[in-house]
């Protein structure tokens, strides 16, 4: 059983990490706790679902549509909500409350169009074979999710380190004023970040919807809770941290179910979060920054 639980932990960790990547990006660069990330995640899942259902499109096409839709949502989010609030020098909580409103709007639109029931992707869109290796069971999809999480992290890290835009982004994250003085187009970069983060969220939505066989309007909510925990554990704004935090949470949850008891599964996640925050607020893997009071 231990070995299978190990495999379970890795795939759960991959799921969490995938969601957290986009979430942490928005916080790191735009300095906003984007509570609409769960809703964008849901939007991506529905976009892909409808494409697959009505156009009988193959999976890559559906994912592409999801990516475009959620990127669009990210663009709208920045243009209509974040940018105006930046312009008005709003207190830093205001964008967060605005994203609450956005989440409500997106969720109710989805529910209005598609109903509150669980839906699923048409079968055959993805090979559902279970691979059996040495008595361990896992699916193709789980492998893909985990690999994709690593791949995306690598791409993001490379982008941030090696490309000019990436370096500019890090500059903006550090100090928007300094970056502006150096001639960086801060507004454009922030918009691009919002787009990329939402795109990541939407794609995560499709994959996780496939993994769990469930698409429903409130699917983003529990993911958001866990996503917040992951991002804190890994260090806010830290890409590697999102990945490591995701796996850490996945392991913590799976092994607490296996050896403590499934009723305490969420308590373990949040209890850990609480303790980590008290002892090491920059997260288990984050850089020690001036985050303490």
């Amino acid at each position, binding site marked *: 059983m231990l070995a299978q639980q190990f495999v379970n932990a890795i795939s759960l960790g991959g799921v969490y990490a995938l969601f957290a990547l986009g979430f942490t990006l928005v*916080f790191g660069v735009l300095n906003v*706790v984007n*509570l609409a990330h769960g809703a964008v995640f849901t939007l991506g899942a529905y976009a892909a679902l409808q494409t697959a259902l009505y156009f009988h499109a193959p999976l890559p096409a559906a994912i592409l549509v999801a990516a475009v839709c959620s990127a669009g949502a990210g663009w709208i989010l920045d243009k*209509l*909500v974040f940018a*105006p*609030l930046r312009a*008005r020098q*709003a*207190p*830093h*909580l*205001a964008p967060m*409350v*605005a994203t*609450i*409103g*956005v*989440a*409500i*709007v997106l*969720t*109710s*639109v989805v*529910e*209005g169009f598609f109903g509150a029931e669980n839906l699923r992707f048409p079968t055959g869109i993805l090979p559902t074979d279970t691979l059996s290796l040495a008595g361990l069971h896992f699916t193709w999809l789980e492998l893909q999710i985990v690999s994709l999480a690593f791949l995306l992290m690598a791409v993001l890290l490379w982008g941030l380190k090696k490309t000019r835009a990436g370096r500019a982004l890090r500059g903006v994250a550090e100090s928007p004023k300094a970056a502006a003085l150096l001639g960086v187009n801060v507004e454009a970069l922030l918009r691009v970040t919002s787009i990329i983060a939402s795109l990541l969220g939407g794609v995560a939505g499709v994959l996780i919807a496939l993994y769990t066989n469930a698409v429903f309007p409130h699917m983003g*909510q529990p993911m958001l*809770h866990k996503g*917040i*925990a992951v991002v*804190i554990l890994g260090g*806010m704004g830290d890409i590697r941290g999102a990945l490591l935090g995701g796996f850490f949470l996945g392991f913590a949850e799976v092994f607490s179910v296996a050896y403590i008891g499934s*009723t*305490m599964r*969420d*308590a373990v996640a*949040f*209890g850990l*979060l*609480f303790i980590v*925050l*008290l002892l090491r*607020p920059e997260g288990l893997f984050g850089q020690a920054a001036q*985050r*303490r*009071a």
Partner: protein
Amino acid sequence: MEWLESFWATYSTLVLSVGTNVLLALSIYLTLACGLLTVANAAFMGIGAYTAGLLTVHAHMPFFFALLCGSLLPASIALLIGRPTLQLSGVYLAMATLAFGEVVRILILNAEDTTGGALGLNGIPQLTGWFEVALAVFLALYVLLALARSRIGRTMKAICQDETATELMGLNVRAYKLFVFVLGGALAGLAGALNAHFTFFISPNEYGFERAVEILAMGVLGGTGSPWGAVIGGVLITLLPELLRGLGHYRPLINGVVLILIILYSPRGIWDLLRPARSVRGPAAN
């Protein structure tokens, strides 16, 4: 009078909810006014609700005693976790208090034998009337307005502006922060105790993430410049769904849109729109 009777028969729960929501908004106003983003008030509300509810249902204690315990227990817990938690700031504080809230909710859920777990606590006597709620709101407002004017209030504003400077002046910043956190916990617990006694039934899931987010929205929407902002926020969030009832299917959608519009138009909350314009942002509250 007949009109009043029939109005009360239909809308009494709504009016009482406005009252308890105002209390909740006030409980978060204290800490928000200082940039302390604590989201534990939903959990404190839950603790207060369950304490008072269990006392009246199982121990048949008098109402005022139950209300008292319902405020004191969350306040004591706030005292306990406040000290380590308030060392954090910004989003980290928010997340720590959020995590705390989730742990509380799960503990209540699992303590089946005492709290009934997922099945909830049923048959809570209807003891809350307009008098109790009005009295609670009045007292809370009075205390908070008085505080804002007092030395404590001025110290809080100073902490808001520049914590390090205030500390350097010899003031025990930690103690002040703890004070507002504990007071907030007591108010939230009171709100929970009152709420439990006009809704017959409570369950752990009511005091989780959604409630915490709702309380936060009330505080931010109303504005953190003054306790009156909290009042506005509480009233608005409670009445908005009712006012929009005619919209049927579109109600949640319009609810969200209104929220966004308010924040966009007045990021500092509605109170900011209503107060007379000032040229200098001085430290005095009134």
